[in-house]
């Protein structure tokens, strides 16, 4: 998976595949998102090609961590396989998802 943060640190873009193997990178990402001051932090998934069940689990954990400081994690523009995984697992009921 490739990662790109925007300047204020509250928005990050994923591309490639997000799987169990990316746990260390994602932990770093979550740490940076938690340090951001914005009320809403955004993960842009428009370029993400593939996510597995472990990737879904990590997103849920990140949502809970962000929620502990009364902020919100938004998932933006999931496509293809990622969007289908969100539908199957009812992520639209668990996250705010920007189309």
């Amino acid at each position, binding site marked *: 998976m490739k990662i790109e943060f925007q300047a204020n640190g509250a928005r990050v873009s994923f591309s490639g*595949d997000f*799987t*169990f193997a990316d*746990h*260390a990178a*994602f*932990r770093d990402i*979550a740490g940076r998102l938690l340090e951001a001051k914005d009320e809403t932090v955004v993960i842009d998934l428009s370029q993400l090609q*593939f996510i*597995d*069940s*472990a990737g*879904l*689990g*990590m997103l*849920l*954990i*990140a949502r*809970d*961590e962000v929620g502990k400081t009364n902020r919100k994690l938004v998932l933006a523009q999931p496509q*293809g*396989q990622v969007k*289908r*995984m969100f539908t*199957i*697992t009812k992520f639209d009921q668990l996250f705010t998802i920007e189309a």
Partner: protein
Amino acid sequence: MMQIPAVEDRRSFDGTCWDGVSEDTLVQALAAPALVCVEAGLLIEGGSGCDDHGSPNRLGLTLSIRSIFRLAIAKAFVMAIDRRLPLCRETRDRVHTALHEVLLNAVMHGHLKIDAALRDSLGGFGASHDIIAAQLDGDDFSQSRVSIDAQWTEERLVIAVHDNGIGYVPGTGRTAKRRGSGRGLLILEAFCDSVTHQNGGRSIILGFDL
């Protein structure tokens, strides 16, 4: 049904050998006209470990759980099928996702029995990764392996995954749904047209209508 190989007999093995190094070398080893591929160092009894169905519409791969953990095996395997049986993007995604989940579960639950509760935190993901890596570096799992056997017609693709572990059935016991894990069965049922567990969870058969 494909049998799990045990002891090598190179004289009767007529498949290709994968060096276990990377996804790129796996794609090369799986390239047509290969019907069967085995990771180097895995021992085969009575040939490839795969039945000969007398049809070119099949592809078999036997590999270590160490390689499954390290590399994107499902992606390479589905790419090899797609080069023989062109799949639409949606079907390719379904097969890739389902096979990826089955292979990951075979390592984490079928062989290593990693506690799913560990993955309820980001730190836990790292801990479970470290536990797996440490176990796979030892000798206990040096012969732990998984065989993937794909067969197809114009209408249907069937992928059988067999392992020589202790078996598991998704959605039961410690693999029941948690925050960080436990969605495997839900995903399999959604992405496959049929899912069959056999042999105490050591074999799973995935069916896809084309």
